[in-house]
């Protein structure tokens, strides 16, 4: 399915869905309250059937005070890609977990928690993945500094 048809189909599923500017594939943006129902429909409904969550990451917009969560989906049945983004506030950031929809989301959400500090509501085992257990701070946030860094990033 090509990009425009896909976007139109996805935006028809959920009322608060918007097209995301600045993307190299079909991309939509949802508010966080609509994220989980939309993802469930994206996985289950037939002309979409996104069965692979390729990647999940976050973008730190420190000046707007937001984290933008990015989900990259792929369908092995139809071969189309989709990017779903969702903005959550930077203070007390909590997002719904998708680990019961796609099992890989378990570790991907642990990675985002490890590096950004975003909590996941309903995650079975939310703890650090790459960094050591006693690490203080979340390195991929924009304001992070470390005494070992020679220059603040």
């Amino acid at each position, binding site marked *: 399915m090509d990009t425009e048809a896909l976007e139109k189909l996805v935006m028809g599923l959920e009322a608060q869905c918007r097209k995301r500017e600045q993307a190299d594939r079909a991309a939509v943006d949802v508010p966080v309250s609509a994220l989980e129902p939309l993802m469930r429909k994206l996985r289950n409904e037939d002309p979409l059937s996104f069965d692979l969550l390729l990647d999940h990451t976050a973008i730190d917009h420190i000046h707007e005070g937001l984290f933008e969560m990015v989900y990259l989906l792929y369908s092995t049945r139809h071969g189309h890609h989709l990017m779903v983004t969702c903005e959550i506030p930077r203070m007390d950031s909590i997002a719904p977990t998708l680990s019961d929809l796609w099992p890989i989301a378990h570790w991907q959400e642990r990675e985002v928690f490890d590096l950004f500090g975003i909590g996941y509501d309903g995650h079975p085992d939310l703890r650090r993945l790459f*960094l*050591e257990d006693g690490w203080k701070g979340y*390195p991929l946030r924009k304001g*992070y500094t*470390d005494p*070992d*860094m*020679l*220059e*603040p*990033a």
Partner: protein
Amino acid sequence: MGIVLDRLPGFLEPIPGGSVLITSIDAIINWSRSNSLWPLAFGTKCCAIEMLMATGAPHQDLARFGAEVARQTPRQADLMVIAGAIVKKMAMRMRLLYEQMAEPRYVMATGSCAISGGPFMYHSYSIVRGADEVVPVDVYVPGCPPRPEAFFYGLMTLQKMIRQGETIRKPGIRKKPVLAALPQGITIDDLHAQQQEMLEHDNMVDVEQAAAQKIWATRLDQWIPKPSKNS
């Protein structure tokens, strides 16, 4: 072997002619150690492909240095080739492996990540800036990654250091013969004077004059056709 080498200098020194014997024994022992360095393959990143894998291949052959026996266990290795960046998590394990190696043990840091943290030196939150924060390094091989030939130069430097800088009288103490010699006819004061002159001379530059003096500036004048007179 270890107990013999520990006791031998104390046993041989008092005997007349014993020092000469120890020097000859040193020569044999250092020759044999330098020609059969068994690397501990400690490749963490891209340098491993050049330093451990490409050098083991037939084109640039590590076997001609006697070092193709790369062991994965530190108990049987005597040269730790650090090929790749060391992160803080890995630094603990690397220290553990270093302490498990039997003496005499040598360390070679290859690639800029192992020397100083490499391109990640300024901003990284997880990289250790240089393997020499974790273990004492004997030879540094610069490059990103160093060519296998550069690695062999480092290996030969290490061999030279073993042959000329080690003795069983003082185990664990190494001289570094490559560091001490200036080229013939040059002294440190010469170098200082040259550096001072360079700093004074290069302090200011006249840009117009420098631009006019370039070789290609004169060639440009020859290349641009002169405007003809009747246009």
